[in-house]
């Protein structure tokens, strides 16, 4: 068996601690991102997810500046930024992109300052690349407990909010009519989004964290309309892409012409993008056939509640 798999897994793949940590953290993060991502796509808040990831740059560079772990910086700044977006008005459909954009612009300005200070004062020139593009093979083992705690927090929030969140994501009016505090649910969800983006930012970098969040979820939602099934599919797709990306990146150290090792982030993102395009072909093919799911998600949720 191991002989058969030798061309796939380069020597010492399974015995290296670095790889084990990367597989563990990447896997956990992919599961969390898949769960939250389904709601992000359903609520049309991809931009918020993307922006929170980018804003993580500010937190990461600030963390380097004061000398704490970057994950703390990611989490702190994402939560603050999510609060600011909520305050400016992310809950209104028209103001949504604008609220996100304004907060993003301001935060990126700060990121420019922090990265500049990192480079000039604390002499950590590698910070820019590490923060922006992640370094899955450079995650310290000591981060794992924090990752687990944060992941459980996110999963707990989603589990508690599941039904009201689903209803308010599909139809805010319907949810409000049923007495669900739509804004509070949205704000709590934004908190969960902020934390999961921070986690993703640590593994595949701030500007690519969106890939894990949106990609598997958007693909899953094209394959199935049922939210529960979509969540499961998104988790599986995310997990598969992340692990495959790690394997390929590890292998790539041996690839010609230059033995430099291609970034994990590149593989993860590319696999996710290809899967999304493929899922488009499959949904196109399904639309040609007579609709096998005549029930739109709005009605199915409403009917289930009645």
């Amino acid at each position, binding site marked *: 068996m191991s002989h058969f798999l030798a061309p796939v897994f380069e020597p010492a793949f399974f015995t290296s601690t670095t790889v084990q940590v990367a597989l563990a953290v990447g896997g956990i993060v992919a599961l969390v991102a898949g769960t939250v991502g389904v709601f992000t*796509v359903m609520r*049309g*808040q*991809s*931009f918020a997810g*993307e*922006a929170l990831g*980018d804003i993580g740059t500010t937190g990461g560079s600030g963390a380097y500046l004061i000398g704490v772990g970057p994950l703390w910086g990611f989490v702190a700044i994402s939560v603050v930024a999510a609060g600011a977006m909520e305050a400016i008005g992310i809950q209104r459909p*028209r103001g949504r*992109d*604008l609220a*996100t*954009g*304004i*907060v*993003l*612009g*301001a*935060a*990126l*300005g*700060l*990121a*420019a*300052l922090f*990265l*500049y200070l990192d*480079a000039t004062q604390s002499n950590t*020139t590698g*910070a*820019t*690349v590490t923060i*922006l*593009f992640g370094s899955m093979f450079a995650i310290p083992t000591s981060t794992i407990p924090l990752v687990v705690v944060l992941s459980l927090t996110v999963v707990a929030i989603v589990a508690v909010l599941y039904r009201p969140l689903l209803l308010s994501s599909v139809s805010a009016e319907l949810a409000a009519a049923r007495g669900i505090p739509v804004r509070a649910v949205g704000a709590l969800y934004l908190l969960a989004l902020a934390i999961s983006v921070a986690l993703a930012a640590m593994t595949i*970098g701030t*500007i*690519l964290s*969106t*890939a894990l969040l*949106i*990609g598997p*979820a*958007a693909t899953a*939602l*094209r394959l199935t309309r049922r939210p529960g099934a979509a969540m499961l599919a998104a988790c599986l797709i995310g997990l598969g892409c992340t692990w495959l990306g790690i394997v390929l990146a590890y292998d790539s150290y041996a690839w010609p012409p*230059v033995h*430099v*090792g*291609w*970034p994990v*982030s*590149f593989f993860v*993102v*590319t696999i*996710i*993008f290809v899967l*999304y395009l493929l899922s*488009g072909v499959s*949904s*196109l093919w399904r639309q040609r056939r007579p609709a096998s799911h005549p029930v739109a998600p709005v009605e199915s949720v409403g009917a289930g509640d009645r």
Partner: protein
Amino acid sequence: MFSGFMINAWTEATIIAVIAGVVGFFTVLRGSAFVAHAVPNGAFAGAAGASLLGISTLVGLGVFSLFGALGIGVLGRRGRHDAVTALALVFMLGLGALFVNLSMEYAPEIYSLLFGEVLGISSNELGPTTVLAIVCVVAVAVLYRPLMLSSVLPAAGEARGVSAFRMELCFLTLVALTTTMTVPVVGTLLIFSLMIGAPAAARSFTDRPGHALVLSVAIALITVWLAIGLSYTTNYPVGFFVGTISALSYALGRGWAAWRRSRASRRAGLAAEATGAGT
């Protein structure tokens, strides 16, 4: 502050502010902030790829921003627009990460691509920027009416024979052009602040589209000039000031709009209706 090399910075920044103000106005009007973020950000990969191949950065930026923008437009027709935008963006960024890794770029170069290097502009960058700026302005002038109609009332536009999809592609091409000319100067991440902050602020000050367009350009100009002046005197990165001033101008605009609303509602004595409309 106004010596030799700084003249280039001032001229270049002025051109960019005008274009960002104009194109940004349509971006805010169409609610396409995400695209305005995605295209410049993704074009970063083009710049990184160009430096890997040893060709002009401008070519790389142009190719990637154009293909990225049109790709978003075409793919967004089917499926969720924002998810497609996000995925196209991260795919381009993933390529960027690969190019950066392969070419073993140094961090300062990546930093300057992302956050701009307005104080290091040479006079031979002015030519292409000017040409692209003129193309942008002419395109907006030609497309002004249909683009405005299709942005505000897409359904009415369709009824009058203005295809919303075609206008979307035109708009995306405009964003790509703007990206190509601005990214080498102000960086991928900060052209966005300029394209969103200034027009959003302008729209809070006035409801008339024509006025808002002019005001948007004016605010963008003030933002850039202030940012360069402050950056020159304090030595901090210009992007920091662009981002902060843009956000401040938007906050001012929101404050002004809120104050005007409350005054109007007091005058009309319709406070109850105003709170009803506000929710």
